[in-house]
């Protein structure tokens, strides 16, 4: 097994379009972990993932997957990774049996037995046309294909979007099982932060093509908090002490990135824990500083 620390290393990716730029994106996905890649619709998550997979060329930057350059070792990398998109990319007239046959030819490590086991576990029919599958079935089908060839890295682009809570929970459990093997890693892009709060080890926030924040999920949740105060008290806050603040008729709620320090500085201040969702919203409004 090759020796590398990070399953994905991205350094300074830049990609320009008319009206949108992926600007100097850098982050790492440590081996054996799951990273949640969070952002609003149109933030640049899918563009970043397409760059990683070489679906689109980048203007500058360096990408390495499983310790290898993503262009020079493309074929070897693709044997060892699996991709799951939000929409099932298989033709409607194919059956699961057909897909098994195709993937068996494409992947050296494809296992019919593992595929069969997943199909039974997900209760998916082998001989029914994929076009007749429901959305949840289609996603399970993609995942069954992704997990049947000993992939070391799973890259998922909005894989749980549009699924009902039961199916989402089932799928998230599968990912946790996948990560039992410490050589397995997952990059999961999503705007459903509740899923990531359940399973992610680390989180990267992206907005308008820029990284807002990246780090271990527990550290981010422990360090960030929402300071609630009156409008009068808000005026006494040092702008350096908070990321952004939401002003209401009754007061202000400001996201702080160092709860302990802020609590010491403003004794008596009420600082509630913040969810990933709230952290994302406040960071997105960082440029405005105050918003309502």
């Amino acid at each position: 097994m090759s020796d590398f620390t990070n399953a994905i290393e991205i350094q300074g990716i830049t990609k320009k379009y008319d009206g949108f730029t992926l600007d100097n994106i850098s982050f790492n996905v440590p081996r054996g972990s799951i990273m949640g890649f969070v952002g609003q619709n149109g933030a640049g998550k899918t563009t970043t993932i397409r760059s990683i997979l070489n679906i689109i060329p980048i203007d500058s930057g360096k990408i390495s997957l499983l310790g290898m350059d993503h262009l020079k070792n493309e074929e070897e990398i693709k044997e060892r990774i699996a991709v799951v998109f939000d929409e099932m990319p298989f033709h409607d007239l194919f059956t699961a049996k057909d897909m098994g046959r195709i993937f068996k030819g494409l992947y050296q490590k494809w296992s019919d037995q593992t595929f069969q086991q997943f199909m039974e576990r997900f209760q998916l029919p082998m001989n029914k046309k994929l076009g007749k599958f429901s959305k949840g079935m289609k996603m399970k089908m993609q995942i069954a294909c992704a997990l049947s060839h000993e992939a070391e890295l799973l890259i998922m682009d909005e894989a749980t979007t549009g699924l009902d809570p039961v199916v989402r929970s089932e799928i998230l459990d599968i990912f946790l099982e996948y990560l039992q093997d410490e050589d397995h890693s997952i990059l999961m892009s999503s705007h459903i932060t509740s899923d990531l709060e359940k399973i992610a080890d680390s989180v990267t926030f992206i907005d308008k093509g820029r990284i807002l924040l990246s780090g271990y999920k527990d550290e981010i949740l422990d360090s960030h908090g929402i300071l609630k105060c009156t409008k009068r008290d808000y005026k006494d806050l040092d702008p350096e002490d908070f990321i952004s603040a939401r002003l209401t008729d009754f007061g202000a709620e400001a996201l702080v990135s160092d709860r302990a320090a802020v609590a010491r500085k403003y004794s008596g201040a009420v600082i509630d824990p913040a969810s990933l969702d709230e952290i994302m919203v406040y960071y997105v409004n960082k440029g405005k500083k105050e918003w309502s």
Partner: protein
Amino acid sequence: MKAARIRALVFKELKLSKKAIIINTLIVVGAAALGWLFMLSSICGNLRRINDLNVKSEIYNIFRLAIPYAACCTLGGFVPNHTSDVNAGWFRYSVGLPQNTWEIAASKLIVLVIRLIIAVVISTVDQIVLGAMYHKSFSLEFFPKLFILVDLFLLSIILETVFVLSERTPDGVKKGSAKYTAAVCAVTMGATLLIMKKYMTVIRKYAMENETTGFSNMLPPDMVRDLNSVVEKLQIISIPLALLILGIIFVMTAKRLKVREK
């Protein structure tokens, strides 16, 4: 492993094309059978029964060109499968699969050759049956002449690879297909205009001086002579030319498939 990948991709391409191949084969066989029925019943264009060898000659001459042409046109082409790949999202997904564009191109070429073999078999069977009805024995000279049509058809596939195979979105494929259709129409019209320009005076003079009946008598003798001369020259190289064009299609397909989304 490469052979296994190409086999898997050929299976995928054939599975996508299966319905179209079956339906188109039935259509062409049906059209050929129509010609056989006409020959058997000696019915001419106005449905009057005439026991005349000239009628059978007309049917023979029309169908021995029309069936191979129809077979080639309806049994080949990359556009439908590429359109399916783009619309399903398979093309984008397949960038993450362990395959290279040469393997994909090889699989598409193999399926193209299979479809052409079907077209050649249908054309040959039709030629044998028509010939038997017209008391004309089958000659191996049929194949070099058939491959002139195959070469023309393969040249249109090159236009497909130029206009359509580098498109990566459903809208792009539609636009590419429209450009391909426009290019084929432009080339066909251009060639027709050139021929008309060369022979218009001759055709007009011949039509005024003769009451022409039947397809074979519609064209002036010197035009027929020129056409036969062109066919004789082309049939010498038609089969190796087909192999060369297939090679060009293979290389161009692999290169166009390498084009990524912007």
